[in-house]
């Protein structure tokens, strides 16, 4: 039976995981390799590394982190953050990542998606979309850049369909309004996008309770749900989330 995925996201700065505290049986809460191995044991279905390093050497540092993780952890690994060129893309894949997530670079130049898909295969291309609900009762969502600071004016649903048509293998959809608030994913956003594209959609932004995962994966029509701080701070374990989902008839790998 095909299962829904639960994906922890690790923010990595200069090769170190930020926000990681309170891990049981982990010597170094900032070591991406140790944390990846820990999540693997907890039945994470995939791992996402989000590179927030600002320095010039960011991609090289990340490639090293990916390589050391892929030596020991044998589940799918997606890397995002700061990927601007085909060369960046290639470097991260070569280090051992399975998928690369692109965001700003695809918005600046949508043919980047076509190029990456034709060179490395659609299965390696994840397009990340940061969306924000329009205000003053205007329907729909705008796509934002730079962590929600710059409105591109692009419609999130249209962009999702375009990214899919250009060869993206998967969409990582984050709602900037619900992100970090822990009141649940934006179900309207994920269900609208998931209903309009053939490719899988990962819901992101807003998980704070078990039922939020359930909502995203059922009414939200998402194929996977991503969370970061919730898992890092041990508010809940991935296994507990999956057990909850299983008891409510959602197919998960346990």
């Amino acid at each position, binding site marked *: *039976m*095909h*299962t*829904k*995925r639960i994906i922890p996201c690790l923010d990595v700065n200069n090769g170190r995981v930020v926000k990681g505290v309170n891990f049981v049986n982990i010597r170094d809460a900032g070591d991406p390799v140790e944390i990846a191995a820990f999540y*693997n044991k907890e039945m994470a*279905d995939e791992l996402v590394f989000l590179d927030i390093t600002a320095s010039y050497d960011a991609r090289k540092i990340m490639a090293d982190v990916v*390589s050391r993780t*892929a*030596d*020991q952890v*044998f*589940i*799918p690994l997606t890397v995002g953050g700061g990927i601007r060129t085909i060369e960046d893309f290639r470097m991260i*894949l*070569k*280090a*051992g*990542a*399975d998928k690369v997530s692109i965001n700003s670079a695809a918005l600046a130049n949508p043919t980047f998606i076509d190029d990456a898909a*034709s060179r*490395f*295969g*659609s*299965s*390696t291309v994840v397009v990340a979309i940061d969306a924000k609900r329009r205000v003053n009762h205007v329907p729909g969502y705008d796509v934002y850049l730079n962590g929600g600071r710059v409105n591109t004016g692009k419609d999130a649903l249209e962009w999702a369909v375009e990214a899919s048509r250009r060869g993206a*293998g*998967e969409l990582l959809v984050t709602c900037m309004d619900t992100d970090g608030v822990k009141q649940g994913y934006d179900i309207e956003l994920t269900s609208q996008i998931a*209903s309009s594209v*053939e*490719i*899988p959609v990962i819901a992101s932004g807003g998980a704070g309770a078990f039922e939020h995962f359930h909502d995203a994966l059922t009414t939200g029509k998402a*194929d*996977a749900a991503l969370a970061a701080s919730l898992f890092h701070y041990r508010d809940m374990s991935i296994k507990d989330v999956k057990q909850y989902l299983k008891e409510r008839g959602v197919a998960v*790998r346990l």
Partner: protein
Amino acid sequence: MIGIIDYGMGNLRSVEKALQFLSFEVKVIKTPEEAQWCEKLILPGVGAFGDAIAAIREAGLDNAIYEAVGRGVPFLGICLGMQLMFDLSQENGLFEGLKLLPGRIVRIKAASHEYKIPHMGWNSLDILKQAPLFDNVPQGAYVYFDHAYHLKTNEDIVSACSEYGIAMQVAAQRGNLYGLQFHPEKSGEIGLRILANFGGLS
């Protein structure tokens, strides 16, 4: 030594690292000459079928594969590598494969909107032939998939299926030939067990 065939497409590092983790001696091979010295061969791959088969023929690796398979060398195709072992594929046209095994590769038809294309994520195995690759792998074990095309064969070579609207044929074997549609190198403990079973073949 296990040779991993590099025809310039896709990411071989994961397969290499998984085998090294299992303490097998591994070599990435790019020429027909290098293939001669391998006791086992693995054909991995992501990307498009047409480009891949062209690259393999261009490098003369097709003949090296036929020669090795003829010698009885255990041969494992993974994902696109598995698809390349069959007669032909309908991916973006019609392309002939290596014809090591009978069958064709067709696009996944979504049975409903629930079924996304690509088939991406973890799905359970309905194992039809346990030995040798699925030794110690329980019925219903989960493995990781990422593909938009799948195998269709009428021959009795299918060793496992997974439900995806249909009973999708996801593993095949005949003699010294083995094909896996899923990624054992990305399927956690279960995947490592399958790779260890292949590495342990004599």
